[in-house]
């Protein structure tokens, strides 16, 4: 069956056998956007976090049928090296990634948090950024989240 949604700002029609296929696999294997990662398949690690209508969604457990007619944004659509999203800019400034595998998920989760809460406190960060990073880059991520808030507040995203 055909399902239509916007992916990174562009309309897209995908053909799937099963409407319950997780959005993650449609994004990765059909649309060939590999930045959204598979980690656990059970919504437990957050490596597959992307945005549906601006909300952070764990796409490994989100059926593609729910994306129909919605705006889906992945790490590839968040920003570019030429025009990085404030979260990406902050991640670069603080040199956050180590292995890097979980980082798109964290960046997407952080971008969604900042759009709702432009100045998250440390406690807000603790409660909202609940993905898993095995390299344990949490110390730098916390600094980068505060820095991203600063950057966004200086140059509000239109």
């Amino acid at each position: 069956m055909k399902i239509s949604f916007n992916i990174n700002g562009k309309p897209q029609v995908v053909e799937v056998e099963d409407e319950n296929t997780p959005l993650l696999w449609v994004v990765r294997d059909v649309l060939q956007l590999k930045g959204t990662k598979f980690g656990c398949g059970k919504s437990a690690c957050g490596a597959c976090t992307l945005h549906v209508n601006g909300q952070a969604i764990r796409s490994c457990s989100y059926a593609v049928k729910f994306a129909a007619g919605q705006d889906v944004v992945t790490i590839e659509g968040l920003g570019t090296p030429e025009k990085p999203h404030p979260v990406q800019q902050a991640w670069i400034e603080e040199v956050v990634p180590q292995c890097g595998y979980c980082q798109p998920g964290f960046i997407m989760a952080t971008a969604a948090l900042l759009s709702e809460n432009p100045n998250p406190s440390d406690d807000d960060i603790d409660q909202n950024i609940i993905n898993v990073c095995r390299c344990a880059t949490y110390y730098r991520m916390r600094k980068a989240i505060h820095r991203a808030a600063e950057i966004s507040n200086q140059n509000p995203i239109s």
Partner: protein
Amino acid sequence: MSKKISRRKFLVRGGIGTIGVVALGTYVFRNPLRRSAYSMMETIVSPYSGSGTEPNLWFEVTKDNNLIVHSPKVEMGQGTFTGIAQMVADEMDVLLDQVQVIAAATDTGIVDSLSTGGSLSIAQLWIPLREMSATMREMIKSEAAKKLNVEMAAINTKDGILSSGGKEMTYAEAVSGVTDWEVPDSPELKPMKDYKFIGKPVSRIDLRAKVFGEPIFGMDAEMPDMLHAVIVRPEHVGAKYKSANIEEAEKMPGVVRVVQMDNWVGIVANSYPQALSAKFKLKVDWEVSKKWTEQDIRDIISVGNGNEMVIQKEGSALRDDDEGVVTMEFKSPIGAHAQIEPNGAVAHVKDGKATIIISTQVIGVTQKQVAEALGIEPENVNVIPTYLGGGFGRRLNTSHAIEAAQLSIAVGKPVKYFFTRKEEFQNDMFRPPTHHVMKGKLGKDNLLEGLEHHFASGNVAIGSVIVPDALHGIIGTDVGAMRGGSIQYRNIPNFRAVQWHSTLPFATSWWRSLGLLANTFAIESFVDEMAIKAGKDAVEFRLTQVGDGEEGKRIKNVIKVASDKAGYTEEIRDNRAMGIAASIDGNSPCAHVVTVSIENQQIKVHKVVCVLDCGLAVNPDQVKAQCEGSIIMGMSAALHEKMTLKDGQLYPTIYGPYDMTLMKNSPREIEVHLVKGVEVPLPVGEPPLGPIAAAVANAVRRLTDRRITELPIKLA
């Protein structure tokens, strides 16, 4: 296509401690226009086997005058590619952003046939890589001299440009069309003061790929016409595959083939979700001869059980009938790697040749194992390593590459295969559980008269493909499990360390820092307890008894600096207490001072002051990043992580229930201070895991009067 030229042999000194680095070889150089290659091959005598390995580096100059380095080591987060780029840039006289580093594939470069691990990459490459880069620079200069018609000595090199008397040429122009190279003697390396990048906190070279989601990992790899596969792995420890009823699974949508091998069954389908759905329809018959329990494991891993090996012996043993002897037992649990990128591979076998794209720490071993399993020559297996979504020792075992290759043979197409998360947790190559008996006796001046560490562990190095079993016959012990097991307090007149080794019914192996985390927990908790019994300050008690040799001096220094920087005190202030611990691993001493409070029986680590002596830090910022990561990963093992046997199966099987340190319980303050006790780079990525568990337990002791003797540390 490559053309080797005049082979030359030379020796370089390098590596650490007893590790000698011997290089013999030819340069490999590739000009993208002519694809002419010239090679330099170096042989690193491994610290373990002494047998030769052949990491080879390829330098490639692109048309637009950038440099591609084909690294013999992989990048798994530790920052090695950035360190490599810094070393190459400084000796090649190019800018850092002119250097790109990629992992060499077995077909196009010669890779490190041992491993990327042991926190050794930068330490091992320190001399040979700079010598190769400097030699390569001279070779380019020599070609430029001919083209510019000037004396080679009159040529200056800077930012990838050669210049002499107003004439200029890029490296790319200089190497263009060269088919025959002269390889000079290795030139003298630059003095440290001339380095622009080495020793500086430059940014990681892989940031862009990792912040914008480029497809750089094994999981992201694809091949044309590729299919997707799952394999059914056992849930019970020790279960053996008998047979499977595949009837229903075969009929599931998208299933191309159910592949039945002697000891496993897999499903190949058009998409991963289809393969996974079909898997639930398979009825597999397993032979479970015994349902292993926690108690079974504890009985096996017990001091006094298994093979005994005395690894340290000074003075006389403490007597059990001596009233003054204090004895305490410590334990650590089974730990999982839990790296976020699952294990897997993309494989294609066609016409007797195999291509494997994989996240691996053992490129050469992966190649050899696939070749053996398929009955083909290793040169017919091209292993293409990718960036690793975490390593931590897990990817020193890549038997899944064989399975991916076999699946590809079965369907005659490229196949991507990877583990589910449950399979990762139940079929990990775990960190073995440990048991420790510490003994000590206070004597004159209330200092230790005797100190003993008796410890039991499962396999770490034994049984591993990268350590020949014969070596263990010679050494007599598991060289991985013993890491951190020795007594560093050499001023004590009587001390010893005794290891007991047993093999468990499930696979155990390398987990970042190996035995260091648990061994240091036992030793440094016990020493702390003895300091309290002696009525002495924990810092002074340690400083007095650490040895006076070179190693001892460096250990004392990290303890002193950590104590000073943290303002270590035995007092409880604002309901917060400090804990200190120190260890030495891979010749890199490290000390942590942690500040801890307890609220509602929950331990909160507020601040960690870390002091590491890793010698020369090629990239101080990335060394700090490794310390921060090691501290939090170590805290995770110390305070949260534990695999348990229930009804013959290992649990938990998912993040969350496998409790880990996350953002909310990471310390909000981490201060890393680097001290330089020697002038060469030493291991970084594991030593800071050593003291963290004991440091936390020592702080908890001061807050509660309770001595915690088991990991993970729990109060309730």
